[in-house]
């Protein structure tokens, strides 16, 4: 025991003359949590899509997805919101990190005490809490991700290569790529509601991760007998609502679908997929062998009904075959789907036109049910002078000719009028035929109804886009095999009612350009002439389209309709769902006699 040891402890008294360490008595007010503090939750309810990823990741089961008054489920939003149980939450913030919409974050509020433990439960963002207005608190760092925000890029043919042939542009995922892409799915199932066919998207993506492609195929055929086709050309509304896409890029659902189909050989289909049930003795006629008709045929056949399909063309597939160029949908892929349907015993009468070869009323008389999906095959008119000029051609005919192997004789400079998918197809087909292509569209690029990818690819392939251009007149050109197009520039006029802006022709800014061919691709209409008026008078038809009731059933009990001719969206997947749903309705009708 040295003297130093006795004296030095008295240095504690130094501290007595300094300010105390103690903080004030209202520390919550004086000391809010740090700017990044993980305090109580707040949810921007408007941004939230109710995907339930927070529920999935929470290891404490602290989150319930609950229905909230005033919120309805609609496409892209389940209408559910997370309810937090602060008898479970550990404030790890994983829910914030995983939040696909980026709507959930934490505030730096941390004080909550009560005498009733049942109080600790609230729907964040929907109930008034003292921390609602707070700005500080934890949110995910932009460079920090719990799932990859970027999708695996699909390998595409280089534009200079793709423009030279009709080879399929998208090369398809490798197994490794597909697994990585499938991994990005958060399995929320929001897409299922948005997909017109309500495909079990998360489930078949799951099967990719498991490497069980046969199961994936089974899952897809539950709702869609055209997976190879849809895996290539689907309009993929699922991806537009994919929550992963809100802060990153959506999961490439379409390519994953394609990947599954590509992994399974057609020869194995019969083994993997469900077989036909026992014969029911019912006969069903289907008009049109497009996606809608064949989809109905497939599901009806599975139920054991005898199905006959009447197709006016020489091959099945309808618009898929004649409207979609083969660099997007190669024939083998389409054939794979159709062959499987035919292999179940669906009989297709080719080159058999209803109204010409068989009367429509005969169908109704001879069959237990009739499903009509004749599609939209009449091009819309531009309603300009000179539309009947020989060098003005409609886009569908161009595509049809190319699909049938005919040379459409378009020359070397082509103007394509329109901004839809058909216009893009026509433009790109024309490029492949060796023409310089100018695309004229009345609105802006972002207003184009065509797929963004299509537009980009068309641009990459050298199509020139002229927007806000309204064709006015087709004139005879100096040379007889050419046409001069008169078009005017347009200004976008805002709609005072908040609708989409309207293009207004500027009379003073007119142009004259000469092309070898002008391709008009501004839409299609239907041809229902095969239906006798005494029948069609009974039906609800508007603007050339059927208006079906429940289960696609018309007022005539036996008559079911579907496809482009009966829906507003006019895309393959909707047609497929129409067919499926009609099949469901027909089966139900035949089984129980119930109307929809």
């Amino acid at each position, binding site marked *: 025991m040295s003297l*130093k*040891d*006795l004296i*030095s*402890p008295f*240095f504690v008294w130094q501290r007595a003359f300094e300010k105390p360490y103690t903080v004030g008595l209202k520390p919550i007010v004086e000391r809010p949590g740090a700017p990044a503090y993980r305090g109580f939750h707040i949810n921007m309810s408007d941004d939230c899509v109710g995907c339930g*990823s927070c529920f999935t990741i929470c290891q404490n089961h602290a989150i319930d997805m609950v229905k909230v008054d005033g919120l309805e489920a609609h496409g892209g939003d389940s209408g559910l919101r997370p309810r937090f149980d602060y008898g479970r939450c*550990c404030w790890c913030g994983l829910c914030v990190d995983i939040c696909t919409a980026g709507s959930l974050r934490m505030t730096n509020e941390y004080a909550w005490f009560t005498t009733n433990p049942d109080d600790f439960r609230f729907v964040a963002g929907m109930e008034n809490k003292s921390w609602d207005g707070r700005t500080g608190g934890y949110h995910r760092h932009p460079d920090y*991700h719990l799932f990859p925000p970027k999708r695996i890029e699909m390998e595409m043919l280089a534009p200079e290569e793709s423009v030279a042939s009709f080879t399929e542009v998208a090369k398809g995922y490798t197994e490794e790529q597909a697994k990585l892409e499938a*991994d990005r799915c958060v399995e929320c199932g929001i897409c299922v509601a948005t997909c017109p066919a309500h495909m079990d998207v998360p489930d078949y993506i799951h099967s990719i991760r498991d490497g069980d492609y046969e199961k994936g195929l089974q899952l897809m055929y539950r709702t869609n007998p055209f997976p190879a086709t849809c895996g290539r050309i689907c309009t993929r509304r699922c991806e537009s609502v994919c929550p992963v896409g809100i802060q990153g890029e959506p999961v490439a659902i379409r390519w994953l679908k394609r990947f599954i189909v590509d992994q399974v050989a057609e020869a194995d289909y019969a083994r993997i997929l469900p077989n036909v049930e026992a014969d029911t003795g019912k006969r069903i006629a289907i008009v049109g062998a497009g996606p809608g008709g064949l989809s109905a045929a497939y599901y009806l056949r599975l139920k054991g009904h005898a199905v006959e399909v009447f197709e006016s063309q020489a091959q099945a597939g309808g618009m898929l075959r004649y409207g979609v160029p083969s660099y997007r949908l190669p024939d083998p892929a389409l054939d794979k789907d159709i062959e499987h349907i035919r292999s179940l015993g669906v009989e297709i009468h080719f080159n058999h036109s209803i109204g010409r070869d068989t009367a429509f009323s005969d169908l109704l008389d001879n069959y237990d049910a009739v499903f009509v999906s004749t599609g939209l095959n009449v091009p819309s008119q531009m309603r300009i002078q000179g539309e009947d000029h020989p060098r003005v051609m409609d886009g569908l005919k161009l595509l049809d000719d190319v699909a049938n192997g005919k040379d459409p004789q378009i020359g070397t400079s082509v103007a394509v009028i329109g901004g839809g998918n058909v216009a893009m197809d026509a433009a790109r087909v024309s490029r492949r035929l060796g023409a310089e292509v100018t695309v004229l569209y009345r609105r802006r690029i972002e207003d184009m109804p065509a797929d963004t990818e299509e537009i980009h690819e068309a641009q990459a392939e050298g199509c020139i886009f002229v927007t806000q251009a309204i064709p006015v007149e087709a004139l005879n050109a100096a040379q007889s095999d050419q046409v001069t197009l008169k078009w005017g520039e347009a200004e976008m006029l805002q709609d005072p009612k908040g609708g989409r802006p309207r293009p207004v022709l500027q009379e003073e800014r007119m142009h004259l350009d000469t092309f070898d061919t002008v391709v008009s691709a501004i839409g299609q209409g239907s041809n229902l002439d095969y239906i006798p008026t005494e029948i069609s008078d009974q039906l609800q038809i508007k603007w050339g389209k059927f208006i079906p009731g429940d289960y696609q059933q018309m007022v005539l009990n036996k008559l079911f309709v579907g496809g482009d001719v009966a829906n507003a969206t006019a895309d393959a997947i909707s047609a497929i769902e129409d067919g499926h749903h009609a099949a469901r309705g027909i089966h139900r009708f035949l089984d129980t006699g119930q109307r929809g």
Partner: protein
Amino acid sequence: MPQPPTHSSSLDMAQPEPIDLSSGKYVKLWQGPQHPGITGNMSLELTLCGDEIVECKTHVGYLHRGFEKFMERRTYIQNFTVVCRIAVPEPTFNEYLYSAAIEELAGIEVPERANWLRALNLEMMRLASFLMWTGGMSGAFGLYTVPNWTLTYRDYILDLFEELTGARIYHMYIVPGGVRNVLPDGWKARALEILKGTEKMMREVDRVMMNNAVFKARSKGLGLIPPDMVDPYGIVGPNARAAGFKRDLRKDEPYLVYDQLDFEVVTATASDAYERAWVRQQEIFQCINLIRQMLERMPDSGPFQAQMPNVLHWKIPPGETYLKAECTRGEYGYYVVTDGSEYVRRVHVRGPSYTHAIAVMERLAVGTNIADIAGLMVSLHTYPPEIER
């Protein structure tokens, strides 16, 4: 330097004479779990003869939550939030080791910047933990001034943690794949300021506690760990270093960025309570020094998270690994076995307190005075939650 350990002498497992409680010579006394002298929630069953302890049995399990069981039914990402609860006063090592083990098994390479941030976190955690321990050690002997100081400075460091990680105690900052955030603006300056204050305070503590006649009288010679006891009992960390073993995982098997830092392993000669306190004292200064080095050399830009798969359905190929790091108590280890599924097959957490609080404590307690139990216990630096998990 101590002699290389021999094994026969210290493996004295011969049962002592049975204690006949009915003889009236002995008193059975429970310390804990409701007892202010016990660190955390555990208890000692002491048999006394007069003031002297003739038998000590450690009872644990008051904090047993069955982590290793329920981790087997949580996904890999979910487990990362759970592990930090295993050692309450020093959670970061759990986060780091769990993440590192998962990364090794999954074959993920962590970016350099994340490694620096992780090391910074670990070292700050060590500092905070040591500060709390200093308070506990001084409090165990009845000097209540020092705990007030050190716990305040620990709190300042927790403030830094709060700013960086978003939480005071359970940071959940080190995540498989990297870290969750980067240093906020101005954080470095604040950190340096606090380090300066801590250093100044620790010099005062040095005067008041380490150079204190009564403290020396109490702690010198208390709970002496002979060198030949170290290996059979698996004694690690400052407890072993105080006995002269130059063993420090940061030096021996450097992880993260420790091979780029400049520091010396602190050792003493005789591992009694005082020397152990002295070693920890020196390591506090070492921590401060290391944090300063890190702040100086840490990269300020670059990625801080590796490319991660979607954690919601993260599968890790079958494998097995054992990773360890030097926490304040010594070797903290994670043994992880995976079987290719989305769930971990087996996790074993090796907390250094496991042996320190049970086997070592039971042996060292025999022959000491009842009054010294609290001090002895603290001097071994045990955290009960990591014993029973």
